[in-house]
C-alpha cells in the first residue's frame, strides 16, 4: 500500500494556503517588462533555431550539416513545445495583451491541437491533479502508474507501453483528449468524438505535410536527409518531453489521491494536493529552460498561470514555507528521479505481493472496475 499522505490540521492548511496566496499576489504585482523581454527573446531563439535547423538540413548530405541541423531543429521543437507553447497556453502571458501570446489562441509545433490540450491539461489535469480516476495523466489510459489502479494481466506490458508512448509521445498527447479507452465502451458523445477526431486529423496532416513531405521535397537531392533529420528531431522532442513530464508526478515520494478524499477541497487543501502530487528536478538554468521549467513541477502546479521563468526564484520561498509547515518537498537530480519512475513502471507491471503479515489484496474499487472495463474494451476492439 502507498504510504498515506501527510496529514495537516485544517487550520494550518489554511494558513499555508494564505501564505501561498500572498506569494502569488507579490509576483503578479511584479509582472512587467522583464517577463515580456524574456519570452520574446526565447521565441526569437526558437524561430531562429528552426530556420537554421531546416536550412542546415538542406545540406544534410554532409554529416556535420545533418547533425547540426537535426540538433537545432530538435532544440527548436523542444523550446516550442515546453518553455513556450505549454506555458503560453496556460495563460501565463495573457496579461500582456499581446495577441500572439494569447493562451486561448496559441498553436504549437506538435501533433496535438491546442484546443484539446487546453482542455485535457489546463482544466482536467491541473484541477484534478493525481486524483486516480479523474486525472487521466495518471497512466494516460494505457499505463498503470499508481497502486490505486487495480492490477490486471494487461499491465504486464507496462514497460513496453511506456516505451511506445515515449517514442510516439506527440501522437499519444494528440489522442489524449479523445479518451480512446472510453470509445470502445460507448461512453462518449459520438458528435463530440467526431469533431475532436477531425481537429486531430487536421493538425496531424499539417505537421506531417510540413515535416515529412514539403521540406524533404523542397530540398531536392537531400530528401532522405531532411526526412531523417525531421523524424529524428520529432523523436528527440518526444523522448525528452516524456522524460521530463513523467518525472513530474511519478517519482518515488509523490502521492495519489482518491475522489472521496478530495471532495469539497478548500484552497489550502488544493495547494497541499498539488504539492504532494508533484516532484521537482534539480539543475542549471539551461536545463530548466529546456525542461520548460517543468523541472519546477511543484511551483508550476501551485501557480500554473505565472510565467514559468519565475519558478526558480519562487522555489526558494516555497521551500521555506514547506519547511516551516513540515510539508515534504520532493526534488532530486534527473537521473535519480527518472530511475525511480522506471522502477515504478516495472514494479506496477507485476501483481502486488501479499503483505508481510498476509494482508489482504486491495478491495476492488471503482478504479478496478474501470481497469477491467478498459481491458474489455481494448480486447473487444482487438477481436472485433
Amino acid at each position, binding site marked *: 500500500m502507498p504510504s498515506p499522505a501527510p496529514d495537516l490540521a485544517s487550520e494550518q492548511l489554511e494558513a499555508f494556503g494564505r501564505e501561498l*496566496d500572498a506569494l*502569488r*499576489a507579490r509576483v*503578479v504585482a511584479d*509582472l*512587467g*517588462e*522583464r*517577463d*515580456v*523581454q524574456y519570452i520574446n527573446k526565447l521565441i*526569437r531563439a526558437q*524561430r*531562429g533555431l528552426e*530556420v537554421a535547423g531546416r536550412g542546415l538540413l538542406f545540406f544534410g548530405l554532409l554529416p556535420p550539416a545533418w547533425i547540426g541541423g537535426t540538433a537545432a531543429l530538435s532544440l527548436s521543437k523542444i523550446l516550442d513545445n515546453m518553455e513556450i507553447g505549454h506555458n503560453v497556453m*496556460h*495563460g501565463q502571458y*495573457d*496579461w*500582456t*495583451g*499581446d495577441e*500572439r501570446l*494569447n*493562451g*486561448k489562441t496559441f*498553436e*504549437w*509545433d506538435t501533433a496535438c491541437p491546442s484546443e484539446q490540450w*487546453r*482542455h485535457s491539461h*489546463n*482544466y*482536467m489535469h*491541473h*484541477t484534478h491533479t493525481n486524483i486516480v480516476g479523474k486525472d487521466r495523466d495518471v497512466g494516460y489510459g494505457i499505463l498503470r502508474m499508481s497502486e490505486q489502479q487495480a492490477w490486471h494481466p494487461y499491465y504486464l506490458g507496462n514497460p513496453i507501453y511506456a516505451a511506445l508512448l515515449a517514442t510516439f509521445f506527440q501522437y499519444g498527447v494528440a489522442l489524449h483528449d479523445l479518451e480512446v479507452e472510453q470509445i470502445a465502451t460507448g461512453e462518449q458523445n459520438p458528435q463530440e468524438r467526431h469533431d475532436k477526431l477531425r481537429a486531430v486529423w487536421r*493538425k496531424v496532416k*499539417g*505537421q506531417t*505535410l*510540413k515535416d515529412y513531405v*514539403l*521540406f524533404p521535397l*523542397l530540398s531536392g537531392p537531400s530528401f532522405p536527409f531532411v526526412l531523417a533529420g525531421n523524424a529524428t528531431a520529432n523523436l528527440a522532442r518526444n523522448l525528452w518531453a516524456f522524460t521530463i513530464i513523467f518525472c513530474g508526478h511519478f517519482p518515488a515520494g509523490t502521492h495519489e489521491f482518491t475522489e472521496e478524499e478530495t471532495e469539497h477541497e478548500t*484552497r489550502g487543501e*488544493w495547494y497541499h494536493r498539488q504539492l504532494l502530487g508533484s516532484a521537482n528536478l534539480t539543475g542549471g538554468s539551461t536545463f530548466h529552460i529546456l525542461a520548460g521549467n517543468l523541472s519546477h513541477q511543484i511551483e508550476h502546479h501551485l501557480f*500554473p*498561470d505565472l510565467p514559468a521563468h519565475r519558478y526558480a526564484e519562487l522555489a526558494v520561498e516555497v521551500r521555506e514555507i514547506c519547511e516551516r509547515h513540515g510539508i515534504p518537498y520532493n526534488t532530486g537530480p534527473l537521473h535519480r528521479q527518472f530511475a525511480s519512475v522506471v522502477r515504478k513502471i516495472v514494479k506496477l507491471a507485476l501483481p502486488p505481493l501479499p503483505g508481510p503479515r498476509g494482508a489482504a489484496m486491495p478491495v476492488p474499487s471503482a478504479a478496478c472496475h474501470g481497469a477491467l472495463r478498459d481491458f474489455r474494451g481494448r480486447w473487444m476492439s482487438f477481436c472485433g
Partner: protein
Amino acid sequence: MVVSQVSHPDRAGWGRRLLHSRLLDALAYPHGVDRYVELVRPLLLRRDVRAEVTAVRHQTPKSVTLTLRANDNWRGLSAGQFVGVSLQVEGTWHTRPYSPAGSEHAPHGELELTVSTHPEGKVSRYLREHARPGMIVGLTQAQGEFVLPDPRPDRVLLISGGSGITPVMAMLRTLCDEGFAGEIGFLNYARSHQLALYRDALDQLTARRQRVRVLRGFTRGRGQADIGRFSREHARAVISDHASAATFVCGPPALIDSVGVVWGQDGLDEPAIETFTPPALAFDAAGAQGVVRFVHSEREAANSGLPLLEQAEDAGLAPEHGCRMGICNTCATRKRAGTVRNIFTGATSSAGEEQIRICVSVPVGDVALDL
C-alpha cells in the same frame, strides 16, 4: 463612408505573391508566416497594419507629434477619420484612438499624429517621453464617419478644442491641397497660447490663402486673441454665413454642447461631431450596481454581484469554463469595458479592454463582455 483609395505601385510584386503563397503557409505551419518574417522585417506582414515612427517633435510642453510611415497593408484614410494605435508600455499592449492630422493627399502611408499628454495617461506620457524614430506601432485601418462630404461643400466651418484640433487640421490641409475655392473658417480653443497646437502650420496656411480665416480662443490666462469660450460671434468672425457652412466640431463635451446650443437657437441641423472622451461608465464599488452587457448575444442583465460566469449562466448563456476557481484559464473572456474585482485576490481591474477569468471576476458597476 468614403475611404480614399490612393493607388500606389505594387512594389515587390513577386515577393508579395510569395509571401502570401499557400506553400509558405504550409511550411510555416502552425505559427504562420508573419511570426517568422516579423523577427527580421517588423513591417513586412501579410495583413496587419504596422507603422514606423520616422520623426518626433514637441510643439508644446504637453504634447508630442509623431510622423509615421505605415506598411503596405495600410489602405489610406479620409480626413477626419481616426486609427487605433497599439504599442507596448512596460510589457503590456495598449491601444488608443488618434486622429491623424495630415492631409489625405500626403504621400501614401505617411501619417501625422499629435498626442496631448494626460496627467494619468499611460500611453500619452510614454509617447511624450520615449517616442523615437524607428519605434514600431500597430495600427488599425482608418475608421469613423467624421469626414468631409464628397463633392466638397461651398463653405466649411471647423471648430475644435484642445487635441480635437487633429481631425479638423486634416480636413483643413486636405481642402488646401485640393485648391478648395470656397471659404474655410477655423475656430480653435486652447487653454493657453503656450499649449496651442499647430500655430506655425495655421499661420502658413492663412498666409497662403485669403479664404481661410483662423481664430484662436484661450480659455485660461492671457494671450493675443484672448476671446474665451465659443459664441455665435466667434463663428461669424471666421465665416460669412455659418448657417450654410458644413460644420465640423471636435473637442471636449462643453464645447460641443455650446455649439449645439447656438445651432439649436438658430434652428440649424446638428453639425458633424467627433468626441474623444471615452463612454461614461458608472463605477460603483459599494453594493451590486450597474448592468452587465453580453455584447455578442445582445443580452443584458442587472448586476447581481455574482461572478460573471454565473451571471452569464443565469442569463441563459453557456460560456466555456473549467475549474471554476481561476486556475485553468478556460473561461478567459474579453471584457470590452468596465471594472471587475477578483474574488480571491480582491484586486480591481482596469476599466478598459482586457482578457479576464469570468469565474472569479465580479462586476464593479457596468461591464460589457464579449459573450
